[in-house]
């Protein structure tokens, strides 16, 4: 009885950490569709929307994988803090780095 209860609670814990298999497949289908749209920008002229569309799709795909496949959406916030600290530090440092190069070459 005790073992069964423990196993049940562990299963429940794992279930709480993620999604169902069908859910993962749905997320993968969304990612595949977004990738197809990205590739379409190479063959179809999106005009002035080309760059914003690509950058938005890139960010959406990034956060979908990180949130659902890497479980950050369901996990402890400390893990999110660890990862996003590194990510935003990198974005800040290299944005400044690229801006500096732009200033010097202008």
């Amino acid at each position, binding site marked *: 009885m005790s073992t069964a209860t423990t196993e049940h609670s562990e299963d429940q814990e794992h279930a709480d950490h*993620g999604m169902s298999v069908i859910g993962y497949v749905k997320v993968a289908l969304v990612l595949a569709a977004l*990738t197809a749209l990205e590739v379409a920008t190479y063959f179809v002229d999106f005009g002035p929307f080309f760059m914003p569309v690509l950058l938005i799709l890139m960010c959406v795909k990034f956060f979908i994988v990180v949130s659902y*496949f890497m479980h950050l959406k369901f996990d402890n916030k400390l893990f999110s803090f660890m*990862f996003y600290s590194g990510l935003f*530090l990198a974005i800040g*440092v290299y944005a400044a780095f690229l801006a500096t190069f732009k200033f010097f070459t202008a």
Partner: protein
Amino acid sequence: MADTAVHHAEHGHHTSTGLSNNKLGMWLFLGSECLLFGGLISTYMIYRGRVGEGPRPGNVFDIPFTSVSSFVLLMSSLTMVLAVAAAQKRDDRGTTLWLTVTGLLGATFVGGQVYEFTAMYNEGLGYTTSLFGSAFYTLTGFHGVHVTVGVIMLLSLVAIIKRSKVPGDKAEVVELVGLYWHFVDVVWIIIFTLVYLIPT
């Protein structure tokens, strides 16, 4: 304090945070990897227009081929998450199956990258041909090495699971390898857009 105690009771990790130190360490490592790839991507963005006498990016990139490679890597994230789900259900057969499929998809991606590099070299883009070439091969090469390390980790894990020699919580070990694998995938999502799809 009370929250930590509750969390400790729920998850069974005997640590001061109530969280797995292994998982915390992996997320810290992935955060530091953002800085590594951030540097490589920034360097590429600065030098991508410096083609010198060598070929331009548009002349050597094969977008349809790279799109298929990207799709393969993206789908390997699905098979990886299915391996984690199987491990959490203590389904060893499902876990090893999905880990093997993920490893094979990763190996396919690396094979595609080797083919791409060979084709580019034959078209005149060597590592020292131009700053664009150096930055491109360094960035995508580093990513390729990460994928290769991931494939080795996946196939090693399959062997360890089959011998029933996984130390500690098996589901957590699979999840940790999965986190690394998904990170490699998200880095490629950025590289594919910034390097291949956005022209110089």
